[in-house]
């Protein structure tokens, strides 16, 4: 796999990028600048947000490892969110690398990021299937536990936690805008 990606010069995608007319965005955007901006912004922002979620869940699982054992519902919940976070981070990270690295004048990099995406996607799918499996297998036990008091969940008092996420989203939009308008 690594030799295939590193030796990208003669690959099929490199030949295609070389022969097709040069576009500032990948061809599937049909030279649509706002669509390219939207995708670039969302993929970049979601990669960072996913990485934040994964890091937070990892640290919580680790610090609670003496009290919350692997088959407790809370650990299953953390495992589900961890796998979902890793899945979406890998998927959006591969896509973001592809969109950022698209440069018809630098064919080798463009080919490398296109091919790397194809290898990273199945790993992301693997994590996706893992969290779905945990949900399906743990459903009766988890739902039984979740029906216990206190209900309902007070979500609105947790607003300030989202400030950091909002900052990341805003900065990603500025970066994507710079990429599209100031190339």
């Amino acid at each position, binding site marked *: 796999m690594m030799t295939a990606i590193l030796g990208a010069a003669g690959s099929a995608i490199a030949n295609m990028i070389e022969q097709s007319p040069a576009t500032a965005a990948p061809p599937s955007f049909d030279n649509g600048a*706002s669509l390219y901006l939207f995708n670039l912004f969302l993929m970049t922002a979601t990669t960072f947000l996913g990485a934040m979620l994964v890091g937070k869940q990892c640290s919580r699982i680790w610090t609670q490892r003496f009290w919350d054992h692997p088959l407790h519902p809370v650990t299953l919940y953390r495992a589900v969110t961890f796998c979902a976070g890793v899945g979406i981070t890998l998927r959006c990270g591969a896509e973001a690398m592809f969109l950022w690295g698209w440069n018809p004048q630098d064919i080798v990099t463009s080919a490398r990021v296109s091919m790397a995406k194809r290898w990273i996607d199945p790993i992301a799918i693997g994590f996706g299937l893992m969290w779905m499996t945990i949900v399906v297998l743990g459903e009766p036990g988890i739902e039984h536990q979740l029906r216990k008091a206190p209900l309902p969940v007070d979500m609105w008092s947790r607003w300030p936690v989202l400030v950091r996420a909002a900052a990341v989203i805003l*900065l*990603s939009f500025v970066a994507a805008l710079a*990429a599209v308008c*100031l190339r």
Partner: protein
Amino acid sequence: MSAVRLGAALGAAAMTSVASREPVIWWIFGEPFHAGPTIVCICAVIITRVIIGLQAKGRAQVALDISITLLSLLVAILWVQDQQLELLAAGITGIGIGSLGAGIIGIAKGAVGGRVRAAIDAFFGMKS
């Protein structure tokens, strides 16, 4: 939505011809720089410091955090300019230097310290 339309208007002009187009150059203090990769690098450093930096609590930590962010910004921007990096490389450089954070000081100390010591030895060695 107006931001999207602005992006569409500017980007449509940018999207049309890639090969014959000049890269956007801005000027600061008489020095030219590529606008796109520099802005991307700045955003990447700030995002990384926002994610990694703000784990600590307290007032003094905020000042320290801002100083480390400014230092990382300086090193990253100068690196992007020196190496004339494109968008992806500039973004990854920003993320990397942002994640080094305070480690940049140690790395620079190691890189320069040996040479300074050798230069001082040579200076004093020559005199005596």
